[in-house]
């Protein structure tokens, strides 16, 4: 992969970078959220969103306005934008964008496996898959009974095959197994993506590596916290930790040994950034650990826009847009369920 220096970047990616920066200007601001949070009904929200870049997104069609409809439309919107970017992109940006979709593919595969284990119909499951992670062979995922079969029959043709080297086993699939496959795939995926960004060099490396490091560490923390109370051992856990984060190697070794939340917190204390996240929130704030991770992610992603001529903006834009969708959905949920007290728990972006 060529080391992209400034003068050549714009030849291939200048248009798209301009486009994505233009789109970024349409991300909702604090005052938008403030106005949205004052709404009493979804209709009010719709009216306000009309004055933003979303325009007539919610007005098309005459279905009843529900939270799930909003969610659907927002996802569709992100998808349209991403497809536009992807279809105009040239390598290495196209590869980079593909890498972004792999994480959704992993989630989709795991969802289909767990769905099949619960005897759900494929036709019912497919619409619930994330559209960014759609691929042809997806429909067949439910047929596989072991990870080995999953790999050799179905996923071998997909880009996910690359991440499968650790996950192949002959054990029967169960729900726990599906989770483990997810994390193993994710680990391999993150490491590969990290390597790709590192080889890209330049500003792409400077921007993307911290984001992916954070992503890796977040997964490590979350895996550890979620594994308490299950039969996943410390050794089993450490096989799932992505090794491209800043916790690697010392922090991960400590995490593998942790047995309760306090010990995880003690590990985080060694790292100033993570210490902030794990610190007790000030009284009155109802932010969960997840929220605080999201906040940190948003912060890292907004930094990407400070530099030019790199691929990170595309990743960051997508992630910020997803966060925005989460925010709108959160507000919409609060509005429909009349939970005005919790409405301010969204995470403002700009």
């Amino acid at each position, binding site marked *: 992969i060529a080391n992209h220096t400034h003068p050549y970047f714009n030849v291939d990616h200048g248009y798209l970078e301009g486009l994505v920066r233009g789109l970024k200007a349409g991300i909702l601001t604090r005052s938008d959220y403030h*106005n949205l949070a*004052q*709404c009493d009904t979804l*209709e*009010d929200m719709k*009216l*306000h969103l009309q*004055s933003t870049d979303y325009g007539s997104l919610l*007005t*098309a069609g*005459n279905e009843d306005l529900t939270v799930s409809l909003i969610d659907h439309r927002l996802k569709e919107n992100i998808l349209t934008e991403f497809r536009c970017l992807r279809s105009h992109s040239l390598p290495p940006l196209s590869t980079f964008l593909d890498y972004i979709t792999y994480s959704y593919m992993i989630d989709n595969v795991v969802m289909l496996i767990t769905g099949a284990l619960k005897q759900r*119909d*494929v*036709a019912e499951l*497919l619409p619930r898959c994330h559209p960014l992670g759609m691929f*042809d*062979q*997806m*429909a*067949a*995922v*439910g*047929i596989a009974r072991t990870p080995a079969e999953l790999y*050799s*029959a*179905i996923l*071998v*043709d997909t880009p996910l095959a690359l991440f499968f080297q650790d996950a192949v086993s002959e054990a029967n699939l169960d729900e726990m197994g599906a989770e483990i496959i997810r994390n193993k795939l994710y680990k391999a995926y993150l490491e590969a993506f990290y390597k790709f960004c590192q080889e890209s060099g330049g500003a792409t490396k400077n921007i993307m590596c911290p984001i992916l490091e954070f992503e890796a560490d977040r997964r490590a923390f979350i895996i550890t916290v979620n594994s308490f109370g299950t039969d996943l051992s410390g050794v089993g856990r450490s096989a799932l930790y992505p090794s491209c984060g800043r916790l690697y190697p010392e922090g991960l070794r400590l995490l593998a040994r942790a047995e309760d939340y306090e010990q995880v917190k003690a590990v985080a204390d060694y790292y100033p950034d993570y210490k902030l996240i794990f610190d007790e929130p000030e009284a009155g704030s109802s932010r969960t650990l997840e929220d605080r991770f999201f906040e940190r992610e948003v912060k890292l992603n907004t930094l990407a826009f400070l530099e030019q001529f790199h691929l990170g903006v595309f990743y960051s834009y997508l992630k910020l847009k997803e966060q925005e969708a989460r925010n709108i959905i959160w507000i919409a949920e609060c509005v429909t369920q009349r939970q005005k007290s919790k409405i301010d728990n969204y995470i403002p972006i700009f």
Partner: protein
Amino acid sequence: MDSFFRSEEMCLVQLFFQTESAHNCINELGHLGLVQFKDLNPGTVAFQRRFVKEVKKCEEMERILRFLENEVVKSNIPIPADFTSETIPVPRDVLDLESRFDKLEQELKEINSNRDTLRQNFTQLMEINHLLKVFDAFLFYPHDRFVAGVIKHERFPAFEKILWRLFHGNFVLRHAEIKPHEEENMDPVKKDVFVVFVQGDQIRGKIRKLCDGFHASMYPCPNNAYARKEMRTNVNTRIEDLRLVLKRTEEFRETTLTAAAANLQEWASKVKKMKAIYYTLNLCNIDITQKLIVAEIWCPVSDLNSVHTALIHGSEQSGSSLSPVVNRIQTQQTPPTFNRVTSFTSGFQSIIDAYGVGNYQEINPAVHCFDCNVSYPSLQLIDMLVDGRYIIFLMGLFSIYTGLIYNDCFSKSFNVFGSSWSVRPMFHPHGPWTNDTLHDSGHLHLDPLVSGVYSGNPYPFGVDPIWNIASNKLSFLNSYKMKMSVIMGVAHMLFGVTLSLVNYINLKDVALQFIPEVIFMLSLFGYLIFLILYKWCVVMKSESAPSILLLFINMMLFDYSSEGTVLYRTQKPVQIFLVVVAVLMVPWLLFAKPLLLYRKHKQLKFLSLLFCLSLFFGVKKAFVSLQVSMADIFVYQGIHTIEYCLGCISNTASYLRLWALSLAHAELSEVLWKMVLQVALRVTSGMGSVLLAVTFAAFAVLTVTILLVMEGLSAFLHALRLHWVEFQNKFYKGSGYKFTPLSFDRMRDMQ
């Protein structure tokens, strides 16, 4: 005529009309298009306004209209051309239209969904038909374990691959592409028929699951030949039936849509007006009794009468007993800027508005826009007809004019009046030249002192054509054009400063700003122009003529020791006087205005002290804000002074771009002549004519693309810059806001 130079005089008017007549009144005003409604509920968010429900209803109707239009366009039904309805949308229309639209939409949706199911059935039947047709060919021997179905063409390879991977080849797969039927082209998706023969029920179940995942439709297929044949005839009759039903549905749909299409334009304009009216009503206040609507509008003073008439007309239409009240109110607020334009001036006005909308009643620079186009050299005609056609037309005229002045057309000169210079007198016996001189020297010098060489009368119009063949043509024309640029630049800027006078008379500080500015510019750059003109007018030996550049620099440095800097006798005292005056203007400009304000402010302070004693708190507040703004005034004036004084120098230099452009243009046209056309003209053999035809084509193309289009564009851009920066910063603030009246005509144009 006043409105030609300035924006219109506007007034704030309060309107009161009855709620019932509101629709008619606003409708009339919308047709008039001369009234801008002021938002009387600024802090209110969109969804808290009064008529938000009605606006929503209109939006819903618009959505249905869009839906209808889509359907109409999809079915290739023509929409009747532009239709302007004069009917007034009244509130009961909304209900009427709404129910009508709802009904229409439902009906159409029902038809569509019926049609879709019918079509789906039809495709399914067609697919079964195909399957049955090809099934026999697939069958080697009777076999009863198979899965048969139809899959999308592009999914088939992936499907096949997965089958192989899963069952390791323990199956027989047959497939055939469905040839699309001509008449049933409503389903243009390419599809494949496939039959998989396998052993074992478990595997069949898996394949079924797989088919589900791949969105393949599976069809039961009898495994004996007779049953298949029977099924086929059965299917065929059903296909025929369906075809008939489909046709009927299609016809019905078309009639419904044609009926809708006829009214579509009228409805659209009605709904649009309706929405505009409700949107406007949202800006107004409603009296507590709900009977009266209060609106505040900006409108041109000269149109006040027509506004009033429109209102009365509107209320009469609604049959209201009370006529609307128009109440002009005094206000401190800055009115919007409104410049009436015609098709000739609109191009210039939009250039100005692109820079900034003028302050209220600020002098309008658009009027003077064309004087900067003078700068464009060389003879050329541009006959492009684009949006700014008048700008281009004027540019063309001025180009021709400057071309004539420089006597330069395709780098050649016209000798219309006969040159004032003559070579013959230079020869023996009158002058020093002999035949030998011609042979010996490369350059010959025409001496105007020899009698008869220069006739004494300059060439009547433009540059003497003899310069075109002179070897020092370039240095002559350069010096000439450079000086012309400076003269024009200074004149242009002085004109700008003078225009600021007209703004100041409104604001009453001519002495503090205008006079020092003019004196500063005149005493330095006006003197420079004087030097240039003086040097042109007196005859001097070229060796002893002082350079104006050096002279001017030395004047600023008070350096009179070096030789050759004296142009006339009293030069030294005059120059010293002028520089001192110019320098004195700087503190005048810098301090006079703030100090005067400071004095006024001190008097005010005394007054406000009195007020404070009487415990008048509001004034104290005002007094504090005044003190804060004093520092602002000092800083602002400082910036303005520095900008103006330095600007005079750099802007003058900036006008040299006129010379640079002219030089580049003249050189380019010379290159095109010499390197392209002349090459062919020099060929004397018979092939010369052919070569000429070829080179002329190249010459013509290059002339048009480079000299006309490219250079024309660059000349326009430079003129624009000179106008925006060098000219406008002398007088134009451009920080007003534009008058945006409610206008139905404009709304229609925007579509």
